[in-house]
């Protein structure tokens, strides 16, 4: 579509709608672990690092296409190899100052994945400088590749306090919500085109008395 009809304002609108869908409605997220190459020792012969150094994890809202892992059995026993496809909103990465790279790691649930490829998804209405998002293909990391304890919702079979997410909080462009800082930026609000929501971000909790989603507060 021509630039006459798709201006910055329209792009902001599209971006904000996308963020709303991903962050305020769907609520899937991954935890990004950036490899610190300069602090990681690489083996001279194999040119691999058995102990990688990572930055602290960053929560990123994403659309995740999870597929069942494949289990293969060999002479050394069985091995589970899962792959996952993660779609991340490009502007959200820019807002948070994240530059995802191939070789970085992320966790989704109890599993860690290594980003094997980063593919820009599409140009928004053909405008070369505006990308919808990144499609990240993740290959399940072998145990030992990343020696971290997974965080976030893991599964009902786990006993950790955060194993099941019993609270979902919207962000809606607010600098913070009940869970802390959001780093969420809604362009139309930031530029003064739209006012902030008439009431703040809503929250859904396991206990309905604590939910503000239905105006129960």
């Amino acid at each position: 579509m021509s630039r006459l009809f798709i201006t910055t304002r329209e792009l902001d609108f599209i971006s904000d709608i996308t963020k709303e869908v991903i962050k305020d409605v769907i609520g899937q997220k991954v935890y990004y672990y950036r490899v610190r190459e300069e602090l990681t020792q690489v083996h001279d012969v194999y040119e691999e690092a058995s102990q990688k150094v990572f930055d602290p994890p960053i929560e990123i809202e994403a659309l995740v296409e999870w597929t069942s892992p494949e289990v293969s059995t060999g002479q050394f026993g069985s091995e589970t190899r899962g792959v996952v496809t993660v779609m991340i909103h490009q502007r959200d990465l820019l807002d948070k100052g994240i530059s995802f790279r191939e070789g970085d790691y992320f966790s989704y649930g109890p599993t860690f994945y290594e980003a094997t490829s980063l593919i820009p998804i599409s140009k928004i209405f053909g405008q070369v400088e505006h990308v919808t998002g990144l499609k990240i293909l993740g290959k399940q990391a072998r145990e030992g590749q990343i020696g971290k304890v997974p965080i976030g919702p893991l599964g009902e079979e786990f006993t950790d306090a955060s194993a099941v997410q019993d609270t979902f909080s919207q962000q809606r462009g607010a600098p913070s919500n009940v869970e802390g800082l959001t780093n969420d930026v809604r362009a139309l609000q930031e530029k003064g085109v739209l006012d902030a929501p008439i009431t703040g971000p809503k929250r859904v909790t396991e206990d309905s008395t604590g939910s503000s989603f239905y105006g129960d507060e």
Partner: protein
Amino acid sequence: MASFANTLSPTPFGFFDSDTQFQSEADSMVTFVKRKLGDDILSVELTSKQIWACFEEAFCEYGAIVNQYQAKSQLSNLIGSSTGSLEGMEQKYPRETLEFALKLAEPYGSTAGVGGSYNTTSGSIQLSQGKQDYDLYSELVDGTGVPIFSSSLNPSRGKLRIFEVMHFNPQAAYRFFDTTSAINYLNNEFSFESFTPETVFYVLPVFEDVLRGGQMSMSNKVRRSNYSYLIVGTKIRIYPMPVSDIPPRLWFRIGFPQDPLAPDIPDSSIYGVSNLSNIPFGNFKYSQINSIGRQWTRQYTLALSKELLGLVRSKFGSIPIPGSELQLNGSDLVNNGRDEKEKLITQLKEMLDTLTYDKLLESQATEVENIKKVLQAVPIPMGRAITIG
């Protein structure tokens, strides 16, 4: 969020910006609209100014529709009155007048020679012995001898209207007392018959006078020449043919084509209210609107906002999000908003249809009939009247 009062040019037209009640309602309207459209949960991509624009439009729409119906009720009373600055007559209850009906009736009176707004004039033709036919357009002259058709009285050179031709049979009265006495005719003409020596007094019953008069009139009609005329085109033919050595002048009363915008009687109402377009019905004042009107305005604002939000969301068929396409509910909102608008307008018009003054009169008449029916069923006590009220 900036309040309405603190916003520069909050509405497109600014009709009601200074009305404090409108200001107050405008701020609440943003919350009302956004909450009704779900902003508590998901974003409503409308600015405050857009909602205020809808609010202003809704109230203008309300005023326009009510004013239209007031015009239906009152145009006949307001027609011809000063247009002024095209406002000031809204939300008024004027007295009923017959000005409109009287103005409509005027031309009939004027043509009949009674009343009207246009002058007539008189002129005459000098009759000639033995000549029956005369040309009205050249021989009918004013007091100075100028043909009336081409005089300044008839600047448009329009067709002459002959209202009256003063060409009558001689009155039978001159023969009333002495059929042979010409002096009686003169006495009648100059109103001194009672003082002439020839006057004869009779003491007779009235019917005798009536019968005698009728007899003489009939005698004239049967035994003498009848006076009449025929006008065809520009010509007039008179009967009987003038035979006198010195024929008199034949007098006419004449009118000219009537210019509806320039009557002879000054009439400023020509430049007053003429139709729906210039009745001085201005915008309503929000502070003078009752809860019925305000609620309609709120609902209509919501419908307009819904349509507007739909237009915003339907600019794109779908929106690209990472890995997928998102369909927005723009067209649903547009359709929904338009349906609601139509429904609200229909409801308001149906209500107002029953409230025009003629409908009120009808309903009052029906009410009276119904009361009579109800009272018919009330038993009348023996020998007593029912007292009501």
